[in-house]
């Protein structure tokens, strides 16, 4: 903290994260070398796999959308001093909400109204799933980290129960619901572009991407441009001062967590209404936890989160491409490489800091 104010913003926000990503790729390159692959080729495959053509870009942006939602979710809670580990479960239950509305209303002829209702249900379900741990934190003092983690397990078990016993489609072997009718399917960008005569490859990138951008703007406005946001940040920086200043801490915890849960719940919109068009298991797998790394890397700011989410989306898409193109890189190796990037840019984010502080320290010392 001591040195944090001393670095120019450009170094702090751009140079250090970039250096961490480069380091991570160097470490991942060594791993690829160790298993007998060509690291240069691996990087090529990952980059062209993530940005090489319209299909690759579409998939990257689709994954990015998920990470923006969970990244924002973690950031909102973090500004209130709450560590929301439960994005995974909130996303899962958010998708359940969207899916239930879709299954109930897609054949009723409500037309375009189905989707807004389903989106609202995703937010509501996600918020409700976060509200219980929030209540326990605010009024009973149960630590939010523990309760949100436990709620991830509960979400997973609840979904298994519902999919296997209640929602499984007629004649299905896999625990999946029936397919939604077109009224409950989000429009794909690739279809729009095709309609405009621009030929692109199909990809699952859908209008939930716009929702993600809107969410980023709303979060920024709320946190930095409203009195409520000021109170939220005050609570995060110094709970005692916030209480002294008259902030209703309990209510703030609940509202912040509900907002966080609602944002995470939108992952369900992107996945369930956007691509799968049916309820199934495990569609939220990894996004909740990935969101923590995204928020850390993006310094809990919507702009930073958008870029961090893009990196994670590119890693996920490029990683999949890596296992398509290079047979010696198995799916486990891809996870290891992604893990290294997360390790360097999330967990070890402060490691490279002293190297960049060094040239500035002397100058600042001279001024003092």
């Amino acid at each position, binding site marked *: 903290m001591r040195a944090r104010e001393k670095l120019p913003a450009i170094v702090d926000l751009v140079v250090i994260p970039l250096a961490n990503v480069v380091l991570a790729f160097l470490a991942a390159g060594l791993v690829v070398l160790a298993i007998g692959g060509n690291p240069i080729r691996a990087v090529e495959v990952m980059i062209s796999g993530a940005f090489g053509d319209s*299909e690759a870009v579409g*998939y990257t942006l689709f994954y990015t959308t998920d990470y923006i939602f969970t990244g924002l979710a973690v950031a909102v809670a973090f500004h209130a001093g709450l560590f929301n580990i439960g994005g995974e479960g909130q996303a899962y239950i958010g998708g359940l909400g969207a899916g239930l509305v879709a299954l109930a209303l897609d054949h009723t002829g409500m037309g375009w109204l189905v989707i807004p209702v389903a989106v609202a249900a995703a937010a509501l379900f996600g918020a409700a799933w976060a509200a219980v741990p929030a209540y326990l934190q605010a009024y009973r003092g149960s630590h939010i980290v523990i309760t949100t983690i436990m709620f991830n397990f509960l979400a997973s078990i609840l979904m*298994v129960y519902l*999919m*296997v016993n209640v929602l499984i489609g007629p004649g299905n*072997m*896999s*625990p*999946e619901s029936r*397919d939604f009718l077109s009224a409950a399917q989000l429009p794909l960008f690739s279809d729009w572009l095709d309609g405009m005569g621009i030929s692109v*490859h*199909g990809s699952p990138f859908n209008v939930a991407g716009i929702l993600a951008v809107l969410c980023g703007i709303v979060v920024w406005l709320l946190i930095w441009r409203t009195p409520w946001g000021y109170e939220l940040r005050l609570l995060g920086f110094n709970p005692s001062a916030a209480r002294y200043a008259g902030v209703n801490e309990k209510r703030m915890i609940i509202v912040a967590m509900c907002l966080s849960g609602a944002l995470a719940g939108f992952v369900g919109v992107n*996945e369930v209404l956007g*691509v*799968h068009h*049916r309820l*199934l*298991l*495990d*569609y939220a*797998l*990894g996004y909740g936890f990935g969101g923590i790394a995204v928020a850390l890397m993006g310094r809990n700011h919507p702009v930073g989160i958008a870029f961090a989410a893009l990196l994670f989306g590119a890693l996920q898409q490029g990683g*999949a*491409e890596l*296992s*398509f193109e290079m*047979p010696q890189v*198995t*799916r486990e190796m*891809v*996870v290891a490489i992604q893990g290294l990037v997360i390790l360097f840019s999330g967990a070890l984010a402060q490691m490279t800091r002293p190297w960049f502080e060094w040239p500035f320290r002397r100058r600042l010392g001279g001024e003092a």
Partner: protein
Amino acid sequence: MKRGGIRRIAALACAFAATAFLAAGRPVAPAYVYAMGGKFDRSFSEALYRGAERFKAATGIPYVDFEVSRETQFEQAYRHFASRGRNPIIGVGFSQTDAVKRVARAFPGTKFVLIDGNIHMPNVLSVEFREEEGSFLVGVLAAMASKTHKIGFVGGMDVPLIRRFACGYGQGIKYADPKATFLQNMTGATPEAWTNPARGAEIAREQFDRGVDVVYAAAGTTGMGVLQAAADRGKLAIGVDSNQNYMHPGTMLTSMVKRVDVAAFDAAQAETKGTWKPGHVVLGLKDGGVDWAYDRYNKKLVTPAMKAKVDQAKADIISGKIKVHDYESDGRCVY
């Protein structure tokens, strides 16, 4: 003059090659998508891998393959292969059904083969097996090998497909030993049930504690734990899908082999010959689609009487004298 002649012949050969190429439509460049258990599960997916390798050895045509890390990736895998001109694209496992349906709709010119699923589309060949028939045979063997007259079954995910294994097996047991007790457990209700060997071993040990001395695992990688637990306790085990007899010689009674490799090979081979046809094929004992494994690893465990009995049962099923009940026809087990 001579050189010109050679050139003309070369040109003619090229023209022939080109017409052959055009006649066959897209070039044959097969792609394979494995089930959740992964390429080297020594069972279901590995059979697909063997079929792919055999195709490569026989034709010299290289192939590509993919292991998903989550079920939601299936569609991306198919889309990736289809958009890069791969043809035919061959996958195993009913959980790929939806992905194949969607991508086959988007790429009507590409041929798809789904093993263990059933899709009616003009560019999809679905291949299913009569697992109940093969399971019946290994049930006969289990009943004859058991000294405690208690026989176990460990299934993977609790789906109609796996119940079909269990019911055929139970029917075979009762056929050979009407008084035998048949215990069955499923590992779980989600795809995770295919990939949990520790849980498989736990269920097998529990069955052993209840007196079971022959256990049949139809559970993907989870089955590895079952076979290991049997080897540890000196009980007999029956493998599934691939011939798993070699894994624990001495305690592996047999394996119910499901010729996924043959189906995968035949589908790709048919495409090179231009005889590929869409539709729905069900392979049973009669077609060599399922069988029991008898080799040097389990020779000592299978007595001549057992072999005679199971060979008789096999002949009777093929001739129609024994009717093996299909669980999925009415959702009931008939012993």
